[in-house]
């Protein structure tokens, strides 16, 4: 059997969940033995393989139109989708933005901040995506496994990767289910 293909990406998160993944330290070599790492933020393939990957992992919630597109592409190209970390699971700290309107937060950042000069305006070039409400990944696409934590513990992430790479569905419960 060929190695299962794994792809990952980050959305409205902080990269901390991917850092926690790297915190499995030397065990990364074991993961590389078991799985074929495809498009991820630390490899140079830009998108999950068109003919599909076995496991897709998303860090971060969805807070703009670009995130939506990435989540949908990942969903359509992976068999099994993991929402990694609190942001992906329920929006996390970035979802505090939902207490304000998008217009208010943009004005604060680009017009009102004390250091912004009189060129201040809300960027709206067509190359830029549009901010939206902050949502959990599962509010936009179907998620197969939720792994909570900010970030989830490296041991939990290793467990998830090792199980999936060996064709098993990981169980996140008991001592593996914690948020510290």
């Amino acid at each position, binding site marked *: 059997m060929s190695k299962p293909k794994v792809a990952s990406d980050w959305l409205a998160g902080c990269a901390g969940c991917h850092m926690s993944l790297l*915190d499995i*330290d030397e065990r990364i070599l074991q993961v590389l033995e078991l799985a074929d790492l495809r498009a991820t933020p630390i490899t140079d*393939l830009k998108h999950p393989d068109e003919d599909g990957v076995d496991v897709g992992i998303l860090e971060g919630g969805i807070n*703009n139109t670009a995130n939506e597109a990435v989540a949908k592409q990942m969903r359509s190209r992976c068999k099994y989708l993991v929402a990694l970390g609190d942001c992906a699971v329920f929006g996390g700290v970035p979802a505090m933005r939902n207490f304000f309107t998008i217009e208010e937060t943009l004005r604060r950042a680009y017009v009102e901040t*004390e250091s912004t000069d009189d060129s201040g305006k809300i*960027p*709206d070039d067509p190359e830029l995506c549009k901010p939206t409400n902050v949502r959990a990944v599962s509010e936009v696409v179907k998620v197969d496994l939720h792994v909570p934590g900010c970030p989830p513990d490296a041991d939990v992430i290793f467990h998830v990767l090792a199980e999936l790479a060996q064709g098993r569905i990981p169980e996140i419960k008991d001592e593996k289910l914690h948020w510290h």
Partner: protein
Amino acid sequence: MVTEKITIEPVTRIEGHAKITINMKEDGDVDHAYLHVNEFRGFEKFCEGRMVFEMPLITPRICGICPVSHHLAAAKAGDAVYGVTPPRPANLLRELMHMGQMIQSHGMHFFELAGPDLLLGFDADPAIRNVVGLVQAAPEITVKAVQLRKYGQEIIRLLGGRRVHPNFAVPGGVNKALSAADRDTILAGLDDAIATTQLGIQIIKEWAEKNAEDINKFAVFPTGYFGLIADDNALELFDGKIRLIDQFGTELERFEIKNYLDIIAEHVENWSYLKFPYYKKMGWPDGVYRVGPLGRLNIADKISTPLANEELKIFKQLNDGKPVENTLHYHYARLIETLYAAEQVRVLLDDADILSNQILNTKHNFQGEGVGVIEAPRGTLIHHYKARPSGQLEKVNLIVSTGHNNYAMSKSVDMVAKTYLNGQEIREGLLNRVEAAVRAHDPCLSCSTHAVGQMPMIVDIVDAQGKTIQTLRRD
């Protein structure tokens, strides 16, 4: 006239998302290349109403690669708001945690993010041009690199309970003293960390010798340089005044961070969610400056630890004592700083106060407003808070490291696109060099888009009417 546009999206092996668009002229030459930062997160707004003392736990969620920078900058801004000076041992411990972060972040960048370009080559097959390819090509070095990152992360964990998003600094000090056992654990790993960093320095020097031609034509340009400095002009990563020098090395300013609004301002461009800081007296864009490892070594005359200071002398010869302008020398500068951070770990651990339990000052003299600063791995990080007497925040302003380098990254992308793409048939390895122009700055796009978000980097080919003809993506 612009006839075509190339889009590279996302830029990989950087923290966060970015997109590059390169507008091409009729004759096939580059008209202009843009770096778009493409997400907005809004921390500056949604922290309003939170308590000042919560900020060391909320703001690290801006960036999981350098959460310690936000953790400490927030605690320092909190010190200023509450008008409290942390006891000396607390500052030593905060600095120790910060050195752990420098080691892990710089180490990871050199070996795992930029390393594939340097060790495997800009033109290597993109399918293997990554850490997996490195494991195959140079397993021993890769394992050492993983251990170096682990070493830095463990310092953070021993102090703050966890590697990512630790809970340690509070306004007035820190919440836990260092045990003798933990001090010994950190000391035990230090020699290996130094050896691996020296190996990295050897690798980058050999690489620089072989690639002198690339280094000298790859985004070399004058700017000012900006960062913390010690009173005797030694490299400083933790605390001090800010020094700004011009392109020739002449000091323009030396100031306390609480006065930052008199010195710098931020410009907004419509095509990026990332703002552009500049030196007010010179105005936008003449007043642009660079931060991070290159900027810091350019403003420093010396380093207080011996091994790093020897390397700094060699670095200073690269441009006859004048500021080093080559973007690719960010890599060498980054490793010299890593060496300093490791040596500084020993200085801190040998300090007689390091195990003291005088770690928290609770005598407040509420000021209501305060600015905190630190040299994050990628450059100067500023947190500025205004609070009501209850401690609830009214206003939050953040200027992050990668922001200061926004102009430099955009300029580098444009220059490298022009240098390498003009008159050439466009191929992947050349586009990878355009990405490497961003990568050299080790941007922290989650950080820079705190207020802002991630930064997808794309290369599109657009015609004169603005219609996209071709989008180069590597899937």
